């Protein structure tokens, strides 16, 4: 069994986490997310050309007269274009399609989405509520299941530390996507929200295993709180890493082999799970100990 002095270096880990956390907040503040169509509303069309696809400028010219609003044409792969425009009327969609067909008859519409602006706003609201309720639900559950472990730290503090760790994971993941959005144009849509919520749930999963061990060791341990927690962390270290590793392995398979559309989703999950493991080992427990020590003073 390993015997790393993890908790003892608690201040180091918490500082690292803090730095990452603040950096993510800054990124979010400065750049925000690159909102996808689910949030902004608008239309998104993906078309494929059987042979030579026309130049971007030609396509733009052809569509510029139709009054579609702000129009973006992006090449995708060798044969496809992704077109985005503001207007969401079905009639305009058909006009755009016809214009493209007149330009080159071999064009095939792979995928089309249009989202009215009202739905985007509603989605933001729903997502917000969802995150709130997940946090609440988990806090309640942890407080309940750890109720018998009230010394030396009150049971709700276990829950609180877990929640802080969750928050940390979520914010850092979001921060990373702010960066990805800024430099790689990666967008967030409903799947992203789903992934974040899953990450939150999963992050606790991991943290609980460590706390669980602590709970078990406390009654029969002879070292102080800090020592006990450290021992618990060491005991569960291998297991935590392995668990995340297996989940990450399956996610890697999805990232490599799954299609374009599922990749951002899998990536979000992978990043989130990685940080979830990190926070369970290096954040949640040190935090708990620091809290106990601080209370003592």
């Amino acid at each position: 069994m390993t015997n790393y002095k993890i908790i003892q270096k608690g201040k180091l880990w918490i500082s690292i986490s803090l730095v990452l956390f603040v950096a993510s907040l800054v990124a979010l503040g400065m750049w925000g997310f690159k909102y996808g169509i689910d949030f902004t509303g608008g239309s998104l069309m993906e078309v494929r050309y059987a042979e030579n696809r026309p130049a971007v400028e030609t396509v733009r010219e052809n569509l510029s007269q139709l009054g579609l609003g702000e129009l973006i044409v992006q090449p995708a792969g060798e044969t496809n274009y992704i077109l985005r425009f503001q207007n969401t009327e079905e009639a305009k969609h058909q006009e755009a399609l016809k214009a493209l067909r007149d330009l080159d008859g071999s064009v095939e519409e792979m995928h089309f989405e249009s989202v009215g602006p009202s739905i985007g706003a509603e989605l933001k609201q729903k997502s917000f509520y969802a995150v709130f309720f997940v946090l609440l639900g988990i806090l309640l559950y942890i407080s309940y299941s750890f109720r018998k472990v009230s010394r030396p730290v009150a049971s709700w503090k276990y829950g609180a530390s877990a929640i802080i760790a969750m928050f940390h994971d979520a914010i850092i993941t979001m921060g990373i996507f702010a960066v990805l959005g800024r430099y790689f144009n990666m967008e967030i849509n409903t799947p992203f929200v789903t992934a974040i919520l899953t990450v939150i749930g999963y992050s606790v999963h991991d943290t609980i295993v460590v706390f669980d061990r602590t709970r078990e060791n406390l009654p029969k341990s002879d070292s102080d709180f800090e020592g006990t927690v450290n021992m618990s962390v060491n005991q569960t270290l291998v297991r935590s890493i392995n668990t995340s590793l297996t989940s990450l392995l399956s996610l890697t398979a999805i990232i490599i082999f799954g299609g374009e559309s599922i990749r951002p989703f899998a990536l979000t999950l992978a990043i989130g799970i990685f940080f979830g493991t990190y926070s369970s080992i290096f954040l949640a427990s040190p935090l708990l100990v620091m809290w106990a020590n601080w209370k003592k003073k």
Partner: protein
Amino acid sequence: MSKNIIERILKPTARGRVWQFFIGILVLLIIGGLIDAGQYYNKGIDWLSGKTKNTIVLPKTKEVPFRLGLDLQGGTHLVYQTDLSSIDSSERDSAAEGARDVIERRVNLFGVSEPLVQVDKNVSGDYKIIVELAGIKDVNEAIKMIGETPLLEFKEPAGAPRDLTEAEQKDLASFDKKAEAKAQEVLGKAISGGDFSALAKTYSEDETTKGKGGDLGWITENDNPVLVKAVITSAQGQVAKDFVSTNEGYEIVKLTGKRDKQSTFSDAKETEVKAMHLLLCYQGIENCTNNLSKEDALAKIKELKAKATPANFSQLVKENSTEPGASQTGGELGWFTKNKMVQAFSDAVFAQGKGTISEPVETEFGFHLIYKEDERNLQEYQISHILVKTKNKEDIVGPTEEWKNTELTGKYLERATVEFNSSNSSPEVALEFDSEGAKLFEEITERNIGKQVAIFLDNYPISAPTVQNKISGGKAVISGKFTVTEAKLLAQRLNEGALPVPINLISQQTVGASLGSASVANSVKAGLYGFLLVAIFMIIFYRLPGLISVFSLAVYAVLVLAIFKLWPVTLTLSGLAGFILSLGMAVDANVLIFSRIREEIRAGKILSLAIEDGFKRAWPSIRDSNISTLITCLILSQFSSSVVKGFAITLAIGVIVSMFSAIIITKNFLKLIMGKWLEDKIWLIGAKKE
């Protein structure tokens, strides 16, 4: 001896219990496998029975397909906003439901399998209608059709098409005269050497071919007898001397080419055959009046065959053939192509030599003797034509229809309610019109006493009651053999037509089918590789127990997929991702347990106890951590988007089944292989005694 076995089954030892459990798991595995891969199993059965010439025919299993979401099947997801502002709140629920019904009926016309149409009411009293059409080809058509507000019309019998008025008759005559003159002019130009192609482009009124210079391509006499007849004696490149008058108008025809028709399937030329036949039907054949049994008919026809020669064939037919009219026609069929007759007949006559009489040929009509008079290559003609249209009565008056519109539409209907007949308590639908509508209704009923008046909703007749007498006061009752449900439905539909609920398309998501099937293929690949990676990892790290957990994982996968099929869960792309993720999480519980067992061994416990305690100690962690994931899934499932819901449900099912598979199945496998022999080989479990 047998008593012993029965005892062992009914009162098993601890070890025996483990075996029984194991067999139970195997049974589950087989059932699950049959559900998952039913079609492969059935194919295997077919192959097997084929190889053994139907001696080994095992029972087949029912094939249950996966239910695929839109992003895997291709299709579209539409969200409509309803405007219920003009309807008071007590009626809003039913108004929304009514609109939903109409939309569903319209959607059903597309023949999409399992369309989904539902009302989504959110907390602020806002009604949306969600439409999901899987596998639909023309989304735009669907949107157009759905978008129309329901249309209610009252129609009366159309009667015979009316006669043309004098003005119309004059109009018709002058139009046709002008057409004739024009045809004459064009014909003149064509004959005097004008460029036919250019003339067609300018003058022809046949839109489909004028662009090609009026070329109709290669046709046989059968395809268009009138046009072919006009040029059958012409030379190649010649224009027929006169124009031909058809139903559509005047045709100027040119023969551009002539050749023998090549068969589409072989190098041979297609031929036509001229033949006479003698038919003997027998008892049991439709419309057969002679009383011969099948054997007698066969005997008779053989007799006739012996007597028949080309010279007397016609006479024999007239005397003996049971084909209606044979006594006059002598069984002459004229020239026909292979596809004109039933297969048995064609095969025989096209194979036999010219001038011969066939052996008896059996078809669904009876027994035939066929005398093949002649055969020739089928001629094809390449024809170009210029059409100058004429008008006829139908063009002016319109096609003959059963119903014609009255002025009365849903606009005038105040309300429709369900009532019960005072005398016999049968359900009826009572209609109430506004004052204008009442007047119109009075006129309509007066005109059509004793006849039917039809009620059309969205151009589909929903009821056609017979008018008993003139109805004034704008109140009417539709009685018929309604059940209460039918009456309610009709009233609801009529009210829909009366209260149009405007709907507005606010969101659309379409996925092309090719993208859908590509996504499926990718997901399957990802799933297999994911499983493989996890399996390899587990075996390397946990060795023997790792191997066991891989088996356990396989059972898990089979069970989960079977549940997906049976529930049924609609699989979306994110749902499949959830499933693949759960593969990784499923082993998590196993990992927990093995870590524990290793610890227990290190602490000095003997193997069997270590296993037992390992499971017991690991359970609380497993339970707590999975519950938090389940809480997340619960909240995610409240989203109305099928994408999110799909993910939540598959993940939840995955988590629950994984708990089961880890605790029960893995434990069972471990216990099974446990024994003294393992005690010494602790390295197999990867634990070292410290």
